[in-house]
């Protein structure tokens, strides 16, 4: 920065004074005129009146360094740099200088208005910890550090957004996370050129490997325990100030369907639940499409016993299956959208109106068949089983292209759709790591925590996807030797 661009204190003051919440207060210290300036909306007034002003009165020498020593504050800075003063004032610091002088003492007096740590709402779990991130990055980092009290936990702080100046923290465990992943993450975040970052999801979308894909390629979670577990697996986490969700990566497609609950219940149960979840996702995408394809083209595939049920339920319906299916699918989407936009109490009413009134009425009016109503309702329900909210949305949207190809070419169309989908998924990467691992490329060892979850005693290595320098989580042989359970 050249001298010309340097912001001088008087010019800065002048600019600040254009805003009415800027306050300038003359004080006398050691008989000399000083001025105290701050933003009233950012600085904590009680700190000023209770702590700063009384302390200032006790200072006898009109010297900034003496004042700094006398004040009961840490993190105070003495600077002449205009840009530092500007930044600090906008973060809730107080400025103190000798009237007319350039040197300025910055005293932190930020008013902290943060909400309490609450129960996770998106990723709620019945058992296990019930803490969710909040909007304050300090608190969020604290939540993670408490779960990983090791010096290897490192943090890189960056600032993103020319207007929002959002504080972004990249968190990883040194020697466990692959340096390459950390560097990729760092590189991608510092490359972001955008004015206003509101939430971590902005960053998530901007640093994804393929932003044209409907599939999210990084996990966003509101659970500190999930982030801590991810870090210990060798993943990299990103926290953004002002956002209650953290981003972790690299990740795989399957991981989007593993709820953090799965680690809290016994491995048999969570394996079964995971398989059910994956099946329900497949059901959600394909059920209506298969219904349309079979009813429109492949009557030979309908089992003999089901035929009369299907035909009878469809006999009075004036539409072809595709119109019927689109109508119902859109109805469900409408209900979901209306429910999401409305306050909780009204939302419940919408559920009843939609589910019972519209559903039953549509069947009775002969607009849809009750068989399809069951299929659509089930597949909507199935799409809500995904633990990560974003992938659930992807799955719901994916249904529509499949419906269309089912109408165009029947089951052949569905299989073309599956082909295109698979090609797309195989091509996807997450921070440069294959998205469909361990299915492709096949990594048998990584199946231990993907479609199924094996017991912790068998989870002795970190996922090979992370390419971690320390792949052993614990020494299996020793653990077995030490295990002393009386028989």
């Amino acid at each position, binding site marked *: 920065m050249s001298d010309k661009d340097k912001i001088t204190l008087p010019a800065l003051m002048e600019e600040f004074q254009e805003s009415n919440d800027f306050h300038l207060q003359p004080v006398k210290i050691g008989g000399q005129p000083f001025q105290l300036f701050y933003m009233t909306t950012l600085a904590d007034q009680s700190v000023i009146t209770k702590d700063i002003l009384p302390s200032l009165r006790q200072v006898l020498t009109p010297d900034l360094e003496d004042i700094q020593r006398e004040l009961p504050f840490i993190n105070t800075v003495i600077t002449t740099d205009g840009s530092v003063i500007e930044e600090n004032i906008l973060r809730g610091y107080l400025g103190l200088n000798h009237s007319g002088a350039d040197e300025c003492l910055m005293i932190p007096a930020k008013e902290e208005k943060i909400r309490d740590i609450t129960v996770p709402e998106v990723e709620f779990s019945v058992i296990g910890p019930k803490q969710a991130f909040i909007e304050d990055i300090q608190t969020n980092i604290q939540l993670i550090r408490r779960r990983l009290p090791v010096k290897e936990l490192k943090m890189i702080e960056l600032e993103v957004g020319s207007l929002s100046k959002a504080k972004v923290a990249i968190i990883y465990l040194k020697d466990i996370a692959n340096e390459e992943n950390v560097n990729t993450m760092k590189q991608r975040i510092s490359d972001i050129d955008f004015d206003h970052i509101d939430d971590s999801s902005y960053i998530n979308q901007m640093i994804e490997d393929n932003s044209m894909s409907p599939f999210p390629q990084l996990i966003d979670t509101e659970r500190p325990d999930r982030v801590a577990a991810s870090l210990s697996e060798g993943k990299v986490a990103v926290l953004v100030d002002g956002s209650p969700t953290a981003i972790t990566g690299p990740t795989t497609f399957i991981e989007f369907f593993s709820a953090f609950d799965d680690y809290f219940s016994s491995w048999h149960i969570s394996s079964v639940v995971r398989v059910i979840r994956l099946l329900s996702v497949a059901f959600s995408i394909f059920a209506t499409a298969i219904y349309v394809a079979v*009813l429109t083209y492949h*009557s*030979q595939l309908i089992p003999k016993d089901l*035929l*009369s049920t*299907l035909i009878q339920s469809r006999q009075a319906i004036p539409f*072809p299956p595709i119109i019927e299916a689109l109508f119902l699918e859109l109805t469900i989407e409408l209900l979901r959208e209306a429910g999401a936009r409305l306050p909780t109490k009204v939302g419940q009413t919408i559920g009843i109106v939609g589910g019972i009134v519209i559903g039953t009425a549509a069947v009775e009016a002969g607009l849809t068949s009750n068989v399809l109503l069951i299929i659509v309702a089930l597949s909507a329900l199935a799409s809500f089983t995904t633990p990560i909210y974003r992938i659930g949305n992807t799955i719901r949207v994916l249904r529509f292209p499949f419906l269309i190809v089912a109408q165009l070419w029947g089951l052949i169309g569905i299989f073309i759709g599956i082909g295109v989908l698979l090609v797309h998924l195989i091509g996807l990467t997450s921070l440069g790591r294959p998205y469909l691992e361990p299915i492709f490329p096949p990594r048998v060892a990584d199946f231990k925590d993907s479609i199924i979850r094996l017991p912790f005693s068998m989870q002795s290595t970190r996922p090979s996807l992370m390419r971690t320098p320390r792949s052993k989580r614990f020494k299996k042989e020793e653990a077995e030797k030490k295990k002393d359970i009386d028989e």
Partner: protein
Amino acid sequence: MKKLMIIFLLLTTACVPTKIVDELMLIHATGFDYIDEKNMRATISVPVYHQGSGHSAGEQSVTSETITGVGHTAKDIRSEMDSKSPRLIENSKLAVVLFDHETANNGIIDTVDTFYRDPTVGQRVYLTVYEGQTRELLEQNLSLQPEISRYLTELIEQNIKNHELPKSNMHVFLYRYFQKGMDPFLPYLKKSDGQVQVDGLAIFKKDKMCTILSREDSFIFKMLVESFQEGTFEISLKDEEYATIMNLSTRAKYSLQKDSDSPKITINLFTKGYVNEYSGETLDQKKLDAINEILEEELTKKISTMIETFQELNVDPIGLGFQVKTRTRGWDEKEWTRQYPDVPVDVNVTTKITHGGVSE
């Protein structure tokens, strides 16, 4: 741009004509009747769904209607039927094809071939021979199951699974038809007291029916062509006593001796079961041994007679020729056909009665 072009091309291609299931006339059963040498009459049975009281009515609200047509070939008849049908006739749910006695006698392969070539028709369609006019049968609404095709499929299915019918459908028929050294067979149905009954097995020479096995014989026949678990067999002992063998499991093994020019076939049949019903007084080990012996004798006798009959008719539904073929290098079909009536067949039956049932 390239991707966009592909999407554009895909969207502008002509769509496949749709066949929406409730806008079709789905044939559930077809029957063929003989009229004269050139003409035959086909009857199709289509389900009629009644929009009744809905939920509670369930199965009862489906009955069947028939459409008939007369012509030289199946395609010819189809066009006549199309002219009588309000909706597009579709073969895709065909479950049973019936032939009357006369049609079966005159050869059925031309008709079977049209179904076999239709990709919408499943290979598991049941082909059957019915003793009377198939049209009359298909027009009926029988009390046990008002939808006739469903009645017939369930009837055949049940009898194949649990009773004396050997596995039989279009695939099996065509396999046995095209396989060298084998002749096909089909279930034979008849009407009895307002119900349809499986009355044995129609044996075909190539595609023409040549003889009919009774129900009891078809059980013995089933023993020779496939192994099964849950058979029931009744034998009569001396002094007007009867015993029923339950849970009869059988396994047939064929072996071939090629000492001379003409081959000699040995059939080893192993059966196992227990006596479930016995009309005599006490059932001790001695009696069981006796039953065992009688059973062995009776089965041996019946199998030998059956094979003799087949040899006289020069028909080979058991597939003895196939057994020889798989064991002979350079098997010649013509020579075998010449040899077949005089080939000596040894039958060895080994039975084992495990126990005399459970009683108090």
